[in-house]
């Protein structure tokens, strides 16, 4: 499984998000290649259609597509949790759903350890 973890250092939530992602992968027994990408310039943000930090794409699909407006700028990402609360971080459940969905799609080449 291929995962892109995009972050901007101006937003303090990325370390916690990466830790949460790795914990979910370990719990799910998923061997994934996590590509950590620092989005450090407005140009790169535009090129990557970066909706804010942190952004996690599992097999190219955002973990919360409906909040992934392609602003392409350096900002913090606003997520909405299952109960509607706003959050600067995706929840573990959100990440779990995303990796399970990718694993269930064999044509994407999901791998289980």
């Amino acid at each position: 499984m291929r995962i892109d973890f995009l972050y901007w250092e101006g937003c303090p939530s990325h370390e916690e998000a990466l830790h949460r992602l790795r914990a979910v992968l370990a719990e799910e027994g998923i061997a994934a290649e996590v590509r950590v990408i620092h989005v450090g310039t407005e140009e790169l943000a535009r090129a990557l259609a970066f909706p804010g930090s942190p952004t996690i794409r599992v097999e190219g699909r955002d973990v919360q597509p409906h909040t992934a407006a392609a602003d392409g700028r350096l900002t913090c990402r606003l997520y909405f949790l299952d109960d509607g609360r706003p959050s600067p971080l995706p929840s573990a459940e959100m990440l779990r759903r995303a990796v399970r969905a990718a694993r269930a799609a064999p044509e994407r080449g999901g791998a289980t350890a």
Partner: protein
Amino acid sequence: MTLAMHQQIIPFTLPGVDGRTYTEADFAQAKVLAVIFWCNHCPYVRAWEDRVIALQREYAGRGVRFVLINSNDPQKYPEDAFPRMQERARLKAYPFPYLFDESQEVARRYGATRTPEVFLFDADRTLRYHGAPDDNFEDPRAVRQHYLRDAVEAVLANRNPPLAQTPPRGCTIKWR
């Protein structure tokens, strides 16, 4: 440099979303005054927003006033432009003035760097608490340390806050 503990409040004169211009003197009757650097777009602000509103409502009758200041550059972050501030304040029925620091001078003089970032002053307007609203932006039910609430209670009781300083957690202020 950030305003140091026990220093005096830094004066400000800023427009509010209600069309009035506010200075620190407008809050002269308050026993406790919190100057909170704020904005619309930041997810940390949004995560803490309801808690800060609830806290102001809870303590309004005890002489506690909060004032919010947005210093972000609206050219880079249009959600933080003055008309959008007015919309947000209306939508959430803000029980406090929400001021626009267009020149960013107030944020610079306070040494504020994040949103949200709380500067809490006592009746003499000396700084008694600086930092985050509490220790868990993500989950109000998981909060263990109610920094702002505890500081307000302490100052109202003429005690020192249990924690005078915590690291502000949030988005960086968006400078020009």
